[in-house]
């Protein structure tokens, strides 16, 4: 490649350095996404084949990602593996085989040094296959004892409606998973997502899996960057443009930042994919602004920089609309291959200012639900009281699925009923999972509604009011 003359100005160099060093610009994840379809089977060897596929394809992932991060100067925080939904890989609906594969996934993750492998997943929006049933049955055991394994179940889609039998079962699965990992604050639930309209190329765990329409192996990148956007908005507020501060120039600033962050993600993704060898294609950049518990790396703080006292105040949904849309517009311009979830994440425990908003009473689960109607990805890392019934958990999920199905977007629920914890209690998971503060749930019963079986039909797509 012949490069043009060096055209980056000293100001731009310094801006980049500030973004990296002060504002936490990093690449949240490079996820190597692998197809397992060609090694599916019902035999005893399937677990070994899965282990081999991952360790062969992913053996250099961590080293390559670290080298590229160092060369390009932008740290790559996580290296992960996503695989074809395991419910499609193991035949004859034998639960024991699913446990063997879960253990093999864990072993592979440990041996190649990635923090998570995701794809212990099933797609049941319209009904259960034998494999789906067997896999879902073992989710509490499989995720409970394999600390690097992530799973998801897609229970609804705009084209199929909501599989309420599956939703009901998810309530019980989440309760069981919390119970199995009760010693660690129900941490198993942090690795399990219930989806509507799940996407096939999401690089972010816990919800990543390798869709059936994907190539044999590809590398998807999840960017980060709430800190970068937040600082830019704060600077805009300190030094407003000549015409004064308005929503238009706020959107403009966010678009510019999203462009730069996405470009960083794209170049890193391409270089990592190239260095992994010719069999790995570059997939997509996921534009999601993903917060971390680090000070300043917060989506809630962006809403504050826009002028809200706290995330969750009236106006939060409108602010989030402006943010999510501007991020997409800037990012789309920067990369031809945008995919995954691409929105703003609002995982409560992983965002220090979200936790604070809950603590001071600014943010309720109902307001969070409203916010998820316009941003990805849903009720994410929401801790609820440990004694919440399976029916109530399922009803919370059903509401969240309804938002996704009706609006033709991805929504998800990653709920943690922390055993023994009540409203306002805080459980500290540490690391990227942060501090979970238990949010109160509505105490009125949905049991009779949730106990009905069947599906909620797919919605009409005209007359959209």
């Amino acid at each position, binding site marked *: *490649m012949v490069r*043009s003359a060096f055209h*980056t100005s000293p100001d731009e*160099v310094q801006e980049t350095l500030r973004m990296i*060093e002060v504002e936490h610009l990093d690449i949240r994840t490079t996820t190597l996404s692998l197809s397992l379809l060609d090694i599916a089977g019902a035999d005893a060897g399937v677990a070994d084949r899965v282990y081999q596929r991952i360790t062969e394809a992913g053996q250099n992932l961590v080293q390559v990602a670290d080298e590229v991060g160092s060369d*390009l100067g932008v740290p790559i925080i996580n290296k992960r593996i996503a695989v074809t939904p395991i419910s499609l890989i193991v035949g004859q609906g034998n639960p024991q085989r699913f446990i063997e594969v879960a253990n093999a996934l864990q072993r592979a993750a440990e041996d190649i040094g990635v923090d998570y492998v995701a794809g212990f997943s099933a797609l049941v929006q319209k009904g259960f296959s034998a494999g789906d049933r067997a896999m879902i049955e073992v989710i509490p055991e499989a995720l409970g004892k394999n600390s690097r394994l992530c799973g998801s179940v897609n229970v609804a889609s705009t084209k199929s409606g909501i599989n309420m039998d599956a939703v009901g079962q998810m309530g019980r699965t989440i309760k069981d998973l919390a119970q199995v990992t009760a010693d660690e604050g129900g941490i198993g639930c942090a690795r399990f997502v219930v989806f509507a309209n799940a996407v096939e190329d999401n690089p972010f765990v816990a919800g990543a899996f390798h869709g059936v329409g994907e190539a044999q192996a590809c590398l998807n990148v999840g960017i980060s960057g709430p800190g970068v956007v937040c600082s830019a908005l704060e600077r805009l507020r300190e030094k407003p443009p000549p015409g004064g501060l308005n929503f238009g120039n706020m959107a403009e600033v966010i678009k510019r930042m999203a462009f*730069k962050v996405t470009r*960083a993600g794209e*170049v*890193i993704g391409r270089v990592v994919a190239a260095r992994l060898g010719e069999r790995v294609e570059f997939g997509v950049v996921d534009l999601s602004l993903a917060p971390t518990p680090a000070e300043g790396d917060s989506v809630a703080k962006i809403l504050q920089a826009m002028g809200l006292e706290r995330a969750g105040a009236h106006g939060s949904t409108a602010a989030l609309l402006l943010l999510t849309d501007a991020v997409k517009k800037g990012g789309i311009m920067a990369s031809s291959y945008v995919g995954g979830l691409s929105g703003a994440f609002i995982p409560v425990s992983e965002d220090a200012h979200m936790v604070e908003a809950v603590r001071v009473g600014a943010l309720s689960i109902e307001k969070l639900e409203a916010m998820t109607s316009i941003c990805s990805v849903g009720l994410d890392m929401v801790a609820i009281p440990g004694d919440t019934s399976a029916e109530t958990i399922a009803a919370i999920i059903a509401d969240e699925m309804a938002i996704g199905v009706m609006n033709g977007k991805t929504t998800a629920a990653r709920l943690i009923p922390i055993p023994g914890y009540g409203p306002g209690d805080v459980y500290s998971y540490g690391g990227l999972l942060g501090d979970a503060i238990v949010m109160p749930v509505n105490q009125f019963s949905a049991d009779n509604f949730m106990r009905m079986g069947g599906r909620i039909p797919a919605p009409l797509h005209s007359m959209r009011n």
Partner: protein
Amino acid sequence: MASLSTEELGQTVADAVAQRLGQSDPELRQMIAAEIDRTFKEATVPKRSAAASGDDERIVISATGHNTVGIVARLSAAIAEFSGDIQDISQTVVGDYFTMIIVVDISDATSQGTTFAQLKQRLLQIAEDMGIHVVALHDDILSSMHGI
């Protein structure tokens, strides 16, 4: 100057030097000319090969910290040691605070098998010794972030 060969360049410089010094010994002139020719050849030959392959590889180094003697000298010595070609330096000292951005073509270094990571490690070592902050990153990231 680009139109002169290194031999011609050596001869011209040697003649000019000899004239200034009032020396007319042809043997001495020849020695100086040969020395200059050799030096230039060593310095320029690898660059031609890199240019011919069309594979420029640029990095940007930023150094900040309290101004002390020898920051530029030590960093540029390390860059030279790795056959880096400094293309641009921007430097300011505000009060006793020093900031510098150096743009370096490292295609010679990489064509000789040295990696950017090795150079970066050396620079960071110098930074630690001198109590300054040094960041080195590949230009690919800057070009892609700031260009459309």
